[in-house]
């Protein structure tokens, strides 16, 4: 179904957990999907759609019960002994990642991943500084204990810790969950700036359509382990009714524009930002004025 060659993909992947116990259950059933390289993809779906399982399959934390995970066409489980190397290529930031902090200082915590990769001290320092810059961590807190920080700052440190590993592919599970609007904008904006500079592949798992419309290049909507929509924000939001049935909330503005069209003001659908809605309303009003003259 996808024309592009994916950077990373799942092919007919099934994942069952608690195999051999009465609690055995399939988290994913025969899923095929691929993510384009060099862009930010927003992976969306309601809770239980298997998004978090996909994240762990992508970096080899989970091994598919059936099917193949490929990076650049290569099966990552071809040699299971080398799965550690895959984890350095695919960075994974879990939901509420602030719980993974453990080091004495912020700088050391960010350096933990790079250190495990066996990099030299100069390179580690360079990466820590770079990751801190993208996540908005100022050097004055480098020597502080991560446990003294506010919730939002902890989140940035945790994300920086994975960014500093400089992965080819970075998967983030709900990186802005629970943050206030300003915090959300800063975290997601930082991720976007990071991607634009690194030109790497980023997958953001989210159920906020508003956020993904603004920060992702392509949106992928999952429904029962199937890709129900894939495209840029305009394409996906043109099918706004469908999103609702998948359990995702559509941006208020998208709904509003649809209702406005239904009420007889001939605006086009597929709008997801206030800016675009503004332009569209002005366009429609101007056209009618022209016609009236």
């Amino acid at each position: 179904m996808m024309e592009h060659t994916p950077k990373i993909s799942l092919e007919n992947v099934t994942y069952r957990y608690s195999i051999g116990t009465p609690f055995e259950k399939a988290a994913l059933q025969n899923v095929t999907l691929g993510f384009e390289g060099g862009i930010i993809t927003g992976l969306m779906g309601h809770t239980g759609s298997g998004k978090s399982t996909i994240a762990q399959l992508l970096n080899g934390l989970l091994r598919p019960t059936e099917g193949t995970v490929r990076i650049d066409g290569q099966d990552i489980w071809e040699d299971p002994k080398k799965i550690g190397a895959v984890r350095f290529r695919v960075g994974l930031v879990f939901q509420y990642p602030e719980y993974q902090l453990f080091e004495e200082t912020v700088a050391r915590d960010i350096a933990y991943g790079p250190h495990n990769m066996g990099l030299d001290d100069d390179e580690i320092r360079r990466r820590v500084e770079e990751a801190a810059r993208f996540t908005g961590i100022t050097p004055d807190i480098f020597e502080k204990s991560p446990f003294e920080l506010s919730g939002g700052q902890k989140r940035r440190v945790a994300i920086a810790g994975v960014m500093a590993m400089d992965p080819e592919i970075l998967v983030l599970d709900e990186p802005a969950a629970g943050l206030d609007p300003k915090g959300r904008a800063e975290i997601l904006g930082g991720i976007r700036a990071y991607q634009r500079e690194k030109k790497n592949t980023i997958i953001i798992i989210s159920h906020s359509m508003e956020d993904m419309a603004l920060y992702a290049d392509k949106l992928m909507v999952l429904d029962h382990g199937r890709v129900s929509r894939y495209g840029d924000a305009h394409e996906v939001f043109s099918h706004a009714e469908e999103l609702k049935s998948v359990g995702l909330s559509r941006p208020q503005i998208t709904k509003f524009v649809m209702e406005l069209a239904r009420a007889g003001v001939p605006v086009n659908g597929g709008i997801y930002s206030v800016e675009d809605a503004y332009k569209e309303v002005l366009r429609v009003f101007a056209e009618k004025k022209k016609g009236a003259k």
Partner: protein
Amino acid sequence: MKEQIIQAKNLCFSYKNEDGKPLPVIKNLTFSIERGSFVSILGHNGSGKSTLAKLLNLVLTPDSGELSVGGIDVMRDDLSEEDIYNLRRRIGMVFQNPDNQLVATIVEEDIAFGPENLGIEPDEIRKRVDDALAAVNMTEFARHSPSQLSGGQKQRIAIAGIIAMLPDCIIFDESTAMLDPIGRAEVMETIERLNRERGITVLHITHYMDEAVRADRVMVVDHGEILLDGTPGEVFSHVEQLKAAGLDVPQVTALVHKLKTEAGFDLPDTILHSADAVEALRALYDQIGG
């Protein structure tokens, strides 16, 4: 005039930082909450809104000012433990993390926890638990373990645990922040219903604009002070002030504001709901050339 369930005057509170210096979090707050109302307290992280909730419930004690909750003057010197106990029964609290407020391994046992602490008769507790379960639409989960439930369901159980104590007021301290959209919708629906059908006063602390617009009244807290206070329509017409405080406005409100200020559209000030905006814009559109 209706009864005020909470009355605060010049309320102040500071945390001590590492050096022992006071760090003011709540500065000179004066406000009152009417019994039976649904009030949203809006503010970004660190604005002092959660501290405020803890003061109202006496988890924290104010440094100075006047505070009366449910007719009890909580700043009184001779405030007894019994008074605090009584106050906590009447002013329930639901917190952010659903996992960290459920005590028991079975849903109905958890709901019974509060009434049991109050020393209520077993038959009466049973009745209250059943009623509370019904109030949050969780009756069929009575015998489940909380660990089998979704975030939204756990949060509804936490709410039921408070309802079983028959409170006058419930404070929701960012109770929707950790939930997914479905869980948030479930909890919001429950909160509204409790307010409407049972007349429970609701104080809903949040940073979600779409939740705040559902209240009768919105108080915006910034740097420990009240920035804006009024109906959602009034508050959200101050788009610039809200943005400066690190908050958003609902998208439709932002659009109407932009059309009004930048394109000179003749629209009313206090549009919050999509349907009103559709109506107003359609009316303007129909006028063109006509």
